[in-house]
């Protein structure tokens, strides 16, 4: 899951982005509201974690701005307030969920997954396409009931493809999910990952549409 994370406290920001990366997410961490304002326009994110008190623009201002501009990414709001009024305000402004500091990493992960499920219209953490099954909660995948041994990157690619079975996922989208704003290991590493996945799933399960991207089929 590619996550935009906006938090001004450097220790918390570092800890959560590190923790979420360990859980297999691609995290892009920004510390100022004003620099984050255009992040959604230029990049595809699966979810946004937004701290409410930020320098530049406040979290609430960003939220309002993004929803006004029509961005529909799921947004989870971080707050240091016990006071539910601000959380209610954030929800009314278009936030999808909120979580109060201090934050348990597993809870944050579960909430992000739930947000993504809802955003994608899935009822649970299971993704399926034919006999390929993927469980997001355990980060496991099966082919015809047999567990698949996938690396973290392979898992991310398969998850991205299974989210929209039968539809094309652009190369750039996949690369963003994999590497975020940091440069990937090298330009053809995605091709290498696809190749490895095909060797585990069978050659004809992942189609290459030249110039467009990849598609998984049953």
């Amino acid at each position, binding site marked *: 899951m590619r996550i935009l994370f906006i938090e001004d*406290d450097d*220790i918390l920001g*570092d*800890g959560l982005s590190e*923790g979420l990366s360990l859980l297999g997410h691609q995290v892009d961490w920004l510390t100022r509201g004003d620099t984050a304002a255009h992040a959604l326009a230029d990049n595809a994110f699966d979810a946004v974690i937004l701290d409410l*008190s930020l320098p530049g623009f406040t979290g609430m201002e960003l939220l309002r701005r993004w929803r006004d501009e029509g961005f529909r990414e799921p947004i989870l709001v971080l707050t240091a307030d016990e006071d539910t009024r601000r959380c209610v305000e954030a929800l009314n402004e278009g936030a999808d969920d909120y979580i109060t*500091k*201090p934050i*348990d990493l597993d809870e944050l992960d579960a909430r992000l997954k739930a947000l993504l499920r809802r955003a994608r219209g899935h009822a649970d953490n299971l993704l399926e396409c034919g006999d390929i099954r993927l469980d997001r909660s355990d980060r496991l995948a099966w082919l015809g009931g047999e567990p698949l041994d996938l690396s973290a990157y392979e898992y991310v690619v398969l998850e991205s493809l299974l989210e929209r079975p039968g539809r094309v996922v652009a190369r750039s989208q996949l690369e963003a999910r994999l590497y975020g704003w940091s440069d990937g290991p090298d330009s053809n590493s995605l091709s290498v990952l696809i190749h490895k996945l095909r060797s585990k799933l069978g050659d004809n399960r992942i189609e290459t549409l030249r110039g467009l991207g990849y598609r998984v089929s049953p």
Partner: protein
Amino acid sequence: MSTFYTGLRKRVVLLSSLLIVLTWIASSLATLSGIEQASDEQLAQRAEAVAWLMLRAASQTDEPVTGDALIRQLEQIGDSLGDTMAYEFGRASDDQAMRSSSFPELSDEATNGFSRHSGDGGDWRVFTAMSEDQSSWSRVAFTPTEPKPLTEMLVLTLKQPLLWCLTLFGILAVVLQSRFFTPLKRIEDALAEQDLLNPRPLALDPARMPRDVRPLVTQLDRILDQTKNLLEEQRTFAYGVGHELRTPLAGCLSQVQVAQRIEDPSRLKQSLAKAERALLQMTQLVDQLLLLARTDPSAPLENPSRITLSALVQESIERRTVTAQREGVVLKWRVDGPHDSEIEAKPELIRTLLTNLIDNAIRYSPRGGEILTRVDCSDDRWLVLSVSDQGSGIDAKESNQIFSPFYQSETGKSSGLGLAIVRAIVKAHGGDVSAHRRPMLGTEIRVVLPRA
């Protein structure tokens, strides 16, 4: 008499009843003595007239009426009028004067006019008329009206309209006292509705209150308002403590959770170092809270020492220079004025004050900005310490709030407790602190301290 003090109502009723009874008695006495005086006066006039008539009748006619016959006739008239007058007529040539049988035995020489005698048969008033040649005289004596007993007088006045008025007044006073106490009752009701955890103004229109009760309402409202502000401050404070602790706490937790999940020893070390930093932040916050709690603005300083403010300014500037350089800010300072800058103070508190002011200025300064700390010694009673930055300046409405604990400015840069501690320290030293927007740019925080 203890019941007298138990109830205001009882007191008013008792006092007004007492007043009514006293008024009644006084007015009765006044009326009655007026009546008595008037009747005594009438008797005296009659006595005077009769005495002169007797003298004339006895001396002017050619064939003088004998005193004896005259007295008999006068007694007859007096009887028919219901008088108790007694008469005497005498001539210098006669040994014996003629008189009524009831006429008192008088010891003194006869002189013209009224005289009073007591003794034989009670009190007498006597009028003496003397002929010009002193050859004959006549006297009329009467007893002045007896003062009647008090009860009889009061019974008498029962028949007077005054008493009815007073009775009516008394009844009205009892009936109206409940109306009289309505404003107090309304205050009581309004107070009974108060929840001290959420005080509100009494919502009593002062214009509808009696004028002498208005100050009470105003004072009560003022106290309620103060309580409200105090509670508000306390809530904001507790909320601020929670809020400020939460972020480092969250940072620490996240780093610990990361540390639990990684195996790489160097990354593990990094995470633990960051968790430690978060813990140190929290420790610092707790230290600040304790300092704020200890710096009681109302208590006098214990064992202050005489210090030179400019020396401490120099020292603090030197200590913050590295931090300022890192933020791209230049620290300057100067001392103005002819006097020294000695104050009675706790040096460690003044150091904290200076550090907090300078740090605050650094936080709000743009890169390349300049911070001027100035000690103005021109006044001989007060020292003025000011720290000015070139930041975006402060709104007028913010200039008081920034000294409240955990006040968060719109920019999201939390001023936390720094300026709240500054205010507490300044107040503890008997001074004052204020924030001003500078004419061109930036903010000036001005501290006024009494000289040693």
